[in-house]
């Protein structure tokens, strides 16, 4: 903590450890139709919803942009929740891996995804809501701060963590009784967001 607080400022108020690094990586998923899945393994992971949204190359020039939330994440989440039939994301989702490119981004994502009421993410963080043993564990694998951000690979790296967790292969990080997981990416200025939902039961 001390090291993080005293780290050099990159762009005030964000210090070095508020920012994720650039890195290298690759991640792969093999998919099939749900009705064929059990031929391959006993514990396939099913896709429950995929939402994708984009707004503008310069979203901050739009009249409604207020610098305290990302419309694209809210819209992508709404699409994915609708497909999956999720009404209360905080209660119904068991774990999430989100695009924490900067510390402030993660705080805002909690609100945009409906995990926290608007403006209340900090209170939830203080209460341990998103800790590994909390109500809704987030970034159980360490997130972008841990892996860096190899741009094209990050989305599938997040899905990889959800996939392993939903199969109960999370090792020391295993979230108890994880059945529904969310992976979220955010990009551009920020102009693009994708929200994906996974489950271990075909329902």
């Amino acid at each position, binding site marked *: 903590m001390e090291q993080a607080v005293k780290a050099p400022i990159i762009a005030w108020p964000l210090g070095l450890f508020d920012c994720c690094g650039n890195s290298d990586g690759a991640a*792969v*998923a093999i998919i099939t139709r749900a009705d064929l899945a059990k031929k391959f393994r006993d514990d396939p992971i099913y896709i429950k919803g995929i939402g994708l949204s984009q707004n503008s190359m310069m979203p901050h*020039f739009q009249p409604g942009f207020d610098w305290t939330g990302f419309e694209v994440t809210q819209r992508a989440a709404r699409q994915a929740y609708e497909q999956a039939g999720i009404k209360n994301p905080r209660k119904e989702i068991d774990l999430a891996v989100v695009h924490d490119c900067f*510390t402030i981004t993660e705080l805002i994502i909690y609100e945009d995804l409906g995990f926290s009421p608007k403006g209340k993410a900090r209170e939830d963080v203080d209460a341990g809501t998103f800790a590994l043993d909390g109500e809704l564990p987030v970034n159980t*694998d360490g997130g972008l*701060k841990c*892996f*860096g951000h190899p741009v094209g690979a990050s989305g599938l790296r997040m899905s990889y963590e959800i996939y392993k967790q939903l199969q109960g292969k999370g090792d020391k990080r295993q979230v108890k009784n994880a059945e529904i997981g969310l992976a979220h990416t955010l990009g551009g200025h920020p102009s693009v967001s994708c929200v994906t939902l996974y489950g271990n039961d075909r329902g």
Partner: protein
Amino acid sequence: MESIKDKIAIIGMGCCKFGENWDKGPEDMIIEAAYEAYEDAGIDPKDIQAAWLGTVGAHWIGMGGLALAEPLKLQGIPITRVENWCATGHEALRNASFAVACGMYDIALAVGFEKLKDTGFPGLGIGRGMHPVMEMRRTAPSTFAFIATRYLWFKSRGRQRDYSQDRSQESQKREYASKGPFSKGDYLGASRKSSYYCLASWIV
């Protein structure tokens, strides 16, 4: 509109070690991740019927699917390259899912990769601003710094996104200058301790 819910199953995944992989090229990382996924799914590479590749570094690997065809010897099947900013990896999975859901393919591969170290990549968003004057040299950290100051400002004023009370930008700027919350000194320190760094990532 139909839902993708329960139409697609992931039967195998792989992920190479992320980080500053000075000793690896993109091919090495793709092979490492793909063969972990093949093994996990218990399938042969020959079972793959179509592939989607997500990457944004196409200026040096070419715009098509060759970056995947070569290392995985997937010559002969359709490979589609997709790109959508930082959502690129998910975009590959999304498009592969639709192709399988419609019945065109039974088994498809979604791959995301990026090789930034050792390629002369200077960092995301150097001079990323699209406006020639107002956004000169705006970077990713500076964009999110704006968001952080704005967010904390709203919070410190107890006006959590009450848009109805928004003043014009100009008067806000003046207010910033005269009695900004950060001049009080303590707010940022407090929030950094209790809010920001509790978010610090787990390593294990």
